[in-house]
């Protein structure tokens, strides 16, 4: 018996359509469905872990403040010795657990975290309404990641491309107020929810 | 020195106000005193006043590094109340409040004590239960307290938004005898009255060292020479550990900063003191018309006397959430005071490991309302070389003995009190 489809934390509020002003270059918002797995490397096993990462996911562990993509899985640095693996499911947590036996603690956070993608020329200005980081091209860019706080809510932010597009990952129980903030912050330019 | 009165003002007005004398003398320090009080803020000046007034000890010097009343006495939010939960605290603050109630008459100086009522709002059952426990403790100790419902809150302060905020108001704990006073006038009034009783108030006199022999205090070294005294009292909020370091011991104190704010002057808008229970924020209106408001600590040690933006944002956001009409008003000035934070949120008025050295310290952010009570109990402790029952529990040793006075259960964290 396969599990029924999970309820998305924003299912009730993130209905497709335009919010705010009908601006010329609105912020585009989408809700990718992801598996998210937290990986914490055991003390002194960093090298073995890196080898396992290479073997199983085809990439090295990303450096602090960075992401690396290996095939369908992206690894995001989140803390010293800690990474978030994200990718389309199913079974990412099991894969990681198998890959890192004895090398790292693996916790499935697929339901605990909610990812929102924002994209478009207005993205930086909209994020600046709550994000305290410098996201200017000289200071940030594709492949960069940061754990931070946006509008008083903890957020894992990483830049995907030069559109620019950013992925914002928040605790699922706080996804709704975060989404509300995002829509408010973007209302001057308009927000198109996919 | 002639006393202040309406009649005297009338007479002086006709004479072009030429006959006024300094409110306190500016004497040079003598070589020795019976008691030296370090710190010319409200607490130090009050200590000197009550030493002279209650205990007849008039050969007293108050040593102040800069100007009197320029530390926390001059940079607080002027609130006076005695609404504490623990009997050790509420009895002390009630004694202080009673002193406040007659302070103008005892000092001959109008400190503009205004018993306009202090409301602590609560927003959920847990907060209401805590308010009941506290208020009942007050009542059982003979202190006025009332529980008011939403209508009662509305009647006291109609512009509070009872419903639309994140945390609707359920009611409030009201102490009608609480209120505000004019902070600067408290320092000046105590100085004026202490001076009139013979106390030397010596400004611009920084203490640079303690003179002790055989574990007993003998006097202090200052920027204006050595001053001998068999008894020395410390009343230097925010800088206590600097002075105790000179005396050779450490204390359970960490210095933190607390911001306060004032708005532009307004016609009467808020007639009482209101404290938001769902975010650090409190507000009252001064006699001059400015809304005086503040919030929580900035969260890390500082002697900097200047605040930072994030805590200010929180204060303003809490304010406008509680009273949405505030949005269009303007903040005029912000400042910060440095606080002696203790690991249980309660104060010290006590003897110290050095014989003859006493202290009133660790006031966290409750120091202003304590001013007369602190001076009174500190003076008692100095005069009798033993604490009064009102401050008997407020020792430095209480942590060693495990007898903390933790009103809110926040634990041994200076920054969480």
């Amino acid at each position, binding site marked *: 018996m*396969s599990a*029924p489809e*999970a309820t998305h*934390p924003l299912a009730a509020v993130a209905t497709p359509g335009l919010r*705010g002003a009908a601006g010329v270059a609105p912020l585009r918002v989408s809700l990718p469905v992801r598996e998210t797995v*937290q990986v*914490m490397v055991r003390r002194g096993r960093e090298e073995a872990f890196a080898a396992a990462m290479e073997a199983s996911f085809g990439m090295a562990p990303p450096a602090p403040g960075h992401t690396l993509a290996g095939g369908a899985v992206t690894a995001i640095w989140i803390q010293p010795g800690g990474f978030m693996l994200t990718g389309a499911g199913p079974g990412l947590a099991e894969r990681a657990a198998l890959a890192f036996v004895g090398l790292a*603690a693996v916790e499935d956070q*697929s339901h*605990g975290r909610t990812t929102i993608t924002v994209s478009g020329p207005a993205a930086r*200005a909209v994020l600046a309404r709550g994000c*305290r980081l410098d996201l*200017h091209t000289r200071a940030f860019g594709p492949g960069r990641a940061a754990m931070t706080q946006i509008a*008083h809510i903890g957020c894992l932010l990483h830049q995907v491309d030069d559109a620019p597009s950013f992925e914002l990952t928040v605790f699922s129980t*706080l996804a*709704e107020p*975060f989404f*509300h903030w995002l829509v408010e912050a973007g209302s001057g330019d308009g927000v198109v929810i996919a | 020195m002639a006393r*202040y*009165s309406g009649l005297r*003002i009338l007479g002086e007005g006709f004479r072009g*106000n030429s006959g006024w004398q300094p409110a306190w003398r*500016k004497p040079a320090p003598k070589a020795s005193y019976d008691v030296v009080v370090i710190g010319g803020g409200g607490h130090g000046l009050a200590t000197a006043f009550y030493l002279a007034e209650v205990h007849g000890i008039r050969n007293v010097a108050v040593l102040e590094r800069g100007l009197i009343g320029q530390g926390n006495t001059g940079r607080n939010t002027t609130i006076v109340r005695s609404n504490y939960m623990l009997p050790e605290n509420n009895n002390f603050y009630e004694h202080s409040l009673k002193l406040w109630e007659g302070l103008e*008459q005892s000092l001959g*100086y*109008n400190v*503009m004590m205004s018993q306009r009522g202090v409301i602590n709002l609560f927003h*959920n059952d847990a907060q209401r*239960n805590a308010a009941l426990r506290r208020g*009942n*403790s007050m*009542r059982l100790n003979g202190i006025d307290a009332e529980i008011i419902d939403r209508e009662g809150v509305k009647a006291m302060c109609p*512009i509070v*938004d009872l419903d*639309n905020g*994140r*945390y609707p108001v359920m009611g409030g704990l009201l102490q009608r005898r609480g209120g505000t006073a004019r902070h600067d006038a408290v320092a000046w009034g105590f100085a004026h009255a202490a001076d009139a009783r013979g106390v030397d108030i010596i400004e611009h006199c920084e203490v640079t060292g303690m003179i002790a022999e055989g574990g007993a205090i003998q006097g202090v070294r200052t920027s204006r020479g050595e001053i001998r005294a068999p008894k020395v009292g410390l009343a230097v909020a925010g800088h206590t550990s600097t002075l105790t370091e000179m005396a050779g011991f450490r204390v359970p104190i960490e210095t933190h900063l607390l911001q306060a704010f004032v708005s*532009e*002057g307004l*016609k*009467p808008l808020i007639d009482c003191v209101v404290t938001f229970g*769902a975010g650090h924020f409190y507000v009252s*209106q001064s*006699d*001059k018309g400015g809304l005086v408001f503040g919030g929580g600590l900035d969260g890390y040690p500082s002697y900097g006397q*200047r605040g*930072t*933006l994030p805590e200010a*944002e929180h204060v303003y*956001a*809490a304010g*406008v959430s509680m009273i949405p*009409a505030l949005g269009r*008003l*303007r903040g005029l000035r912000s400042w910060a005071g440095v606080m002696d934070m203790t690991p249980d949120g309660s104060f010290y008025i006590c003897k110290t490991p050095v014989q003859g050295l006493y202290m009133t310290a660790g006031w966290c952010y409750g120091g202003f309302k304590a001013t007369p009570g602190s001076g009174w109990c500190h003076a008692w402790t100095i005069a009798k070389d033993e604490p009064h029952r009102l401050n008997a529990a407020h020792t430095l040793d209480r942590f060693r003995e*495990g007898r903390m006075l*933790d009103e*809110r*259960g*926040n634990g041994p964290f200076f920054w969480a009190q």
Partner: protein
Amino acid sequence: MTQPHRLATGGHVDRATRLSFSFDGRRYEGHAGDTLASALLANGVRLVGRSFKYHRPRGIFSAGVEEPNALVELREGARREPNTRATVAELFDGLSATSQNRRGSLAFDWMAVNGLLSPWLGAGFYYKTFMWPAAFWERVYEPMIRKAAGLGRASRLPDPDHYDAAHAHCDVLVVGAGAAGLAAARAAGATGARVILMEQDFMLGGDLLNEPGLEAWRRETVAALAAMPEVTLMPRSTVFGFYDQGVLGAVERLADHLAEPPPHTPRQRYWTIRAKEVVLATGAHERLIAFPGNDRPGVMLAGAARTYARRYGVRAGETAALFATHDGAYDAAFAIAEAGARIAAIIDPRSDSAAMQRAREAGFSVKAGSVVSGTMGGNALRGIAIGAQGSGARGDAVPVDLLMVAGGWNPAVHLASMSGAALAWDEALHTFVPGTPVQRERSAGACRGVNGIGAAAADGAAAGRDAAIAAGFAAGPDNTLPDTLAADHCSYPVWEVKGRGKAFVDLQDDVTTNDIRLAHREGFSHIEHAKRYTTHAMGTDQGKTGGIVGAAVLAEARGEPVAKVGLPRFRPYTAPIAWGAMAGQEVGKHFQPVRRTSLHAVHDAAGAVWMDAGIWKRPAYYPKREDADAWASVLREARAVRQRVGICDVSTLGKIAVEGPDAATFLDRVYANTFSTLPVGRARYGLMLREDGIVFDDGTTSRIGPERFFVTTTTAQAGPVMQHLEFHLASAWPDLDVSLASVTDQWAAVAIAGPKAREVVAGMVEGIDLSNDAFPFMAVADCIAAGVPARLFRISFSGELAYEVAMPAGHAAHVWRAAMQVGATHGIEPYGMEALGLLRIEKGHVAGSELNGQTTAHDLGLGRMLKKKGDFIGRVLAQRPGMTDPSRPRLVGLRSVDPRRQIRAGAHLLVDGRDQGWITSATQSVVDPGWIGLGMLREGEARIGSTILAANPLMGEEVPVRVVSPHGYDPENRLVRA
């Protein structure tokens, strides 16, 4: 409608755009580009306000933020803004303004009688009187004072506008867009640095706006800046404070120049700026001179009169005099003369100067060696008296309706001072300028005493270039700078002209030179004391025009130089800032985020009444139509659990995955009881202490694998416990190999409790033998619940046979519905926090009101849990005498003797009239109907069986209660183990 004082041409107003506005109910017309002040002057309105104490008539004094007099209530209704400076309020069509602080009309304010009483209302008079009789202060004197004090009236309605906050980063922040600021921004921008230029005015240019000859340079520069991709120009933006480490705060006014904000537009936006380097080009405020009657409407700062003429095309008077102390001021006379006014006299205390020569050549009457010794008029200036400098004589009267005063310049050093730089006295300028910077900032132009547009621009360009280089950029190409003759702005220090009548050093707060001298006489001789005693420089203008004049008067009284007296310390804000802006967007309902469990919609659909638990929303209870009141709902839900089965959302409990080779060792050290002995597949109740020995938190922790634990915490302490664990791992035991992950959000959980719980769970769970032997109390196992992977715990908070099902949060609604479906035949009901509380009080389980940070394990009857061997947090300090004192209050159960009489948490427990404890939690019981509670009572155990009083004097209640064991319901735990 005409604007009789508007010039036909010139300036930066758009005469084609006519804007209608009203002041005190009368309608006027102005133009786009006007401020309210310039439009009022264009219409000949001179009297605009009343002063704070004496209610003296006051006119427009300045043309900027420094305005002390022209404060109005702007807009109406919920948007009314008191104390708005007319001099910076941009005119918009339909603007309405009202004068403030008057009783009666503006022209006849009967509070002006205070002026006659002024000998008795001097500085600090109120400290010396109103003391007798004592009761009169609150009842009579203070209400009188309060009513008289204050300025404008606040609206009592919620502010209808919304606000925004935003964050900025740059290499170089330039504050002020006058000649120095524009040049600085351009020079910095030319290096390729990221530059933000903030200007509080709605036009960029500062004093350049008064220089038609330099308009081309201004336009070209602004256009060049606008074309630079890394330069951001921000007009209408006031930098209000300079904080530590290169952080500045600013407020941008997005919609104050409109009648109301357009849709989706905030009124204002609050900016936090992090700048690598800062160039302060904030200019200077002109200084007043304290002479008798220096406050009459028609007395105006010279630079302001010049600005009204040149920038706004408004003639501020018809017959004007200039009281100048330096050559730089003379352009005001030329400007107002060009505007068509007659110059009646130029009064200058100096004997001669180049500017005086030029003025004479232009045909002006220049009175050298003279001062203005007094003014005449009522609600408007009618004339001035001119006396000889230093003589004290009043001298000749000259009829004028405008007196332009130029006492010199006060550099706007506020931000430099806030950044930590000490101020330095400049002997040539007779003023304070910024000293050595302590942060990465530099001042340029008039704010550091470099006066004259050409000099300021050159200074700014150098500062901008240096700042960019300091931020790591290479110098860019030089730009052309305006070439003007440097005017002599070194003023002749005339602070005060002594004579009969009030001479004000603070116009807004009515502080006179005599008040300052009185303060000195009474011993308030330090500037900080004098300021507080007289309220000098404490108004909304913070003494921008007269602060230093007060210091000078004090200096004279003390017989010391002004430099020695100094200025009071500058504090934020440089100008008053809107409360709403500082609050930003997270206010009202969004003051704090609402945290929701994944079952939120399910509870909503079930009609839950919500309650706040920290930032969480949790169901309090689920009312049904047949319930008479809330208690009926709560009792019904609790009965369902006791008699059948109930289901409750417990997802808010904190959950921490603890994993690693040292996980068991670590838990042994952070818990007061032992976890290393816990078998895999079992849970154990755990108690954590703080290091001071007080109970910190409790919860059940399960062993999922040899090196994997699943720790649960209370809802309130989830964050603090995580931090506590991380801190001790980092600081005390960095050798332990343990990883911690918060999985609170990953796992939702429901409790299924009641005699029928096993049936319900069995009906939805696969893969577990639920028999008591196979899955006993405190067992834990992974399973499939309703088709989704889940983890089943046999734990109980209610005292009934109970299970908790934890599942990935996105599946919780599905599992809940499945349980409801399976449970329907067993009469399952959802229960909320209220019933949960009821059940645990009956059972005697402690919760937040008992674990309140003040109780020890012993107090709570949990002393046996403390392990005897091995270190753990809190072990040592829990042994202090005060912590083990047998007289400490201990947990007891309480039962109202009369079951109908309510007892409440917060009541105190009186034994023989003495306060011996308090009630921590109270509820009605379903097991044995009546009111019961838990409490902390001194000698609690010894008093079991006795009857004492629950006193709640706040509510006038005194209820006899019987002291009982806290574990009233199934004390042997037979049910939970069944």
